[in-house]
């Protein structure tokens, strides 16, 4: 069984039918070739498949593709070249907050949702906000430091 979907993915309109049981993760990777979205735990714990739906982070492994109907989806590919992306990459590089890189796309999108709220959370609040994104390599400290820097720089910055 298929279902008609009309959505905006990375700024590009998508019109078409998707199988009713297809996961957003598989749709993005296999149908649209957006391989920055990674698959790992499949139970909405690790955050590596995070994408933004109407600006809010969701785990695409537990989200039906047909449920993006009428909504806006962003993956890491969709923010390429934006001031936020440049700022995020520079901060992650400066702190060496990337190792194997498997969690990075999900991390950066979760940070984007945080930055878009234009708030200055404490380090503790950052840890809480990021607790749905696992990283097995870095020990988190460098990522947290990069996030503090990103949020500071993005405060008051234009969209």
């Amino acid at each position, binding site marked *: 069984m298929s279902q008609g979907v009309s959505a905006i993915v990375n700024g590009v309109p998508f019109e078409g039918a998707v199988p009713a049981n297809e996961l957003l993760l598989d749709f993005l990777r296999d149908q649209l070739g957006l391989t920055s979205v990674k698959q790992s735990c499949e139970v909405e714990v690790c955050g590596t498949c995070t994408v933004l739906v109407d600006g809010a982070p969701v785990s695409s492994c537990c989200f039906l593709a047909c449920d993006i109907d009428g909504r806006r989806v962003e993956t890491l590919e969709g923010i*390429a070249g934006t001031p936020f992306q440049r700022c995020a990459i520079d901060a992650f590089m400066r*702190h060496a907050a990337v190792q194997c890189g498997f969690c990075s796309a999900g991390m950066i999108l979760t940070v984007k949702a945080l930055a878009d709220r234009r708030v200055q959370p404490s380090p503790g609040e950052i840890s*809480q906000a990021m607790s749905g994104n*696992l990283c097995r390599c870095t020990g*988190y400290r460098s990522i947290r430091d990069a996030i503090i820097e990103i949020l500071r720089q993005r405060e008051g910055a234009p969209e």
Partner: protein
Amino acid sequence: MKADVTAPPSAHQSSGAVGRIVERADGRVKLAGQAEFTGDISVPRMLHGAVLRSPVAHAEVLAVDVRAAEKLDGVIAVLTAGDLADIDPFYGHALRDRPIVAIDRVRFAGEPVAVVAAETQAAADLAVTLIEVQYGALPVAASLEAALAPEAPLVHEEPARPGSAHGLGPLPEREGNICYRYGFERGDLERAFDQAAVVVEGEYSFPAVYQYSMETHTTIADYRADEIILWSSCQHPFLVRQEIAALFARPLDQVRVIVPFLGGGFGSKSYTKMEPIAAAVSRKAGRPVRIRNSVDESMVTTRRHNMRCRMRTAAAADGTLLGRDVDLWLDTGAYADNGPRVTATAADAAPGPYRWRAVKVGADCVYTNTGPAGSYRAFGATHLQWIGESQVDEVARRLAIDRLDIRVRNLLRPGEEVRPGGKPLDADLVGDVQQAAAAIGWDRPRTARRGRGISVGLLAAGAHPVSTATVRMAADGGVTVLVGTTEAGQGARTVMAQIAAEVLRAPVDRVAVRSTDTRYTPYDRSTGASRSTTVAGMAVQRAAQAVLDALIETASIRLETPPGQLRIEEGAIRSGTRSVTHSELVRARFGFDGGELLGTGRVQPEAGTGSYAEGPVFWEVCVAGAEVEVDKQTGVVRVLQTASVADVGKAINPQLVARQDEGATLQGIGNALFEEMRYTADGILMNNTLLDYRIPSFEDMPTSMSCTIVENGDGPGPFGAKGCGEGVLAAIPAAIVNALADAGVPMNVLPLTPERVWRRIQELEQETERERT
């Protein structure tokens, strides 16, 4: 130096390429989401694989009916044991004990029984559910106790066959379910214990742990008449090539292993994992097949060994350590995987880095009907250090000696023998542990609910010192390094580029290190045992030196200056006021607007055979301190601060060293506090998702985490470097256990879950109560 900030200071510490923070070579491509992992690759005509796994832990396979699966739309092939009759289908680098898919018998819940290759993943997944298997139940030995009991069911009945790459010398015969035995005895143990003023003894238990590399095991195999091609998330491509060649009776050059970026490894992708299954099903389908494990499949593909241990430690009244007596049993699951090596390394870690009058260690590697156990970062040392170090603390407590002082008194000094015939100690352990103690405020007063602990240990590192590398310099002066080290996140490509750049005085950003393809990349034994910077790095250093020698030779002719009077500058060679660039020198050498300089480098054992007994290449230092707080109402343990010491000889890139220690610290916190794979008595893994197997998150970060880098130039690698990244994982659980004992709760079982800690607190309170009445 103290790496207390995660971002580099604005000024570089040195002008060369080595010894300073250099931006990760692979960072930007990863952060842009463009780095290619095996699961991102699609090859023409590729099929999708799905594995049917046994639901029971021990059974005869009476019948497998694949007819319904084969009829399903989109299914191209279904592989079962019957398809393997024309080859010797057993593999295993230590013991050749494992069939590609189960033959006649399954030995653990999760063992592959059949594999489907189909046009879509959905068809493959559905087809697997249509395969009917009849199992004939056999008695299950799903724990060490069950497998070591008299009359225990045997996991393997056929005679043992040694694998091709274990490096452990002649293997002893299997006894019951004990597949490997290692031990040693030095000095007069009975006398040492007779002379003791204090004897500490205990029984301990360490859990099975899941490595969790975020990228699960993923392999694409394309079995062709002329060549078997594998794209695989593997740490040891050259050992995979060797095993695949042996399985399918092909010469080495007809097996090609390509390794894209790895989404973490930590040992879980060492040796051979899903490659034989993928190759076998591709052989049957006649098309390339991709197999990607889910997390629950990776959990039964490999894990850390659970262990039971008995240890006693004897000491004189003045705190001199006299003797240690250890027996340990490691549960390697249904197939040996790297169990024998883990067993030997655990036994070698058991005495700890101390001077003893006598030690005796016996270690057994035991088959059970559970998922196979293999390598996980700092294996052996992580198993033993918390036990040995908690006994040293207990000796100090009974003798009222400071816990740092007792270590300083007994620790081995540089040059002293660690194990007979092996490499003497090549590190300043006293200095290292003093730094860890200072970093956590050893002498500061503390409150009642808090405790501090330090721990020190050694890990035999470097595995086999066999690596080769090629350095190429193109006519534009650009450099490409071909080296078989797998980039799994540790930063190996960056470090290799720094080493080549330092030798050649080339700009670091002109040195490219690409992924391994065994068709073109020269041989490297493995990526593990903290060996890459030290061993592969030395091959790169030598290869770069060969290119530099050619540049100097050409410059000497071109500038009419003897080689000894030339000055090597960044990107050029100078004589007086005249200077020629690398690019000009390459072209001058060929007399043509093209050409390329090639240098090769080789590392091999300098003496002997490079066997395990003669090693290690270096001793990796395992030193850390921790401060914890325990809530005695709930049993919850919180890690307030950790301090790690990276004794690396020379930090090629201090930022990457710090990142290794921080990552190992969080894994150490997980191993110490909550990570544990739990099985039913029937051998079924109960917590097989990340919902109920918890991995440390942002919120598990200690309030303060420091990493001290020690550079004494005492490593055997390039510029005095030696490896790092594993030792801290062994040291952190030990420091936490000792800190918790310091807060009044000594423990002999990991992980330190709130329930276990709370029960122990109740026990201790009842004991105190009894003593009072």
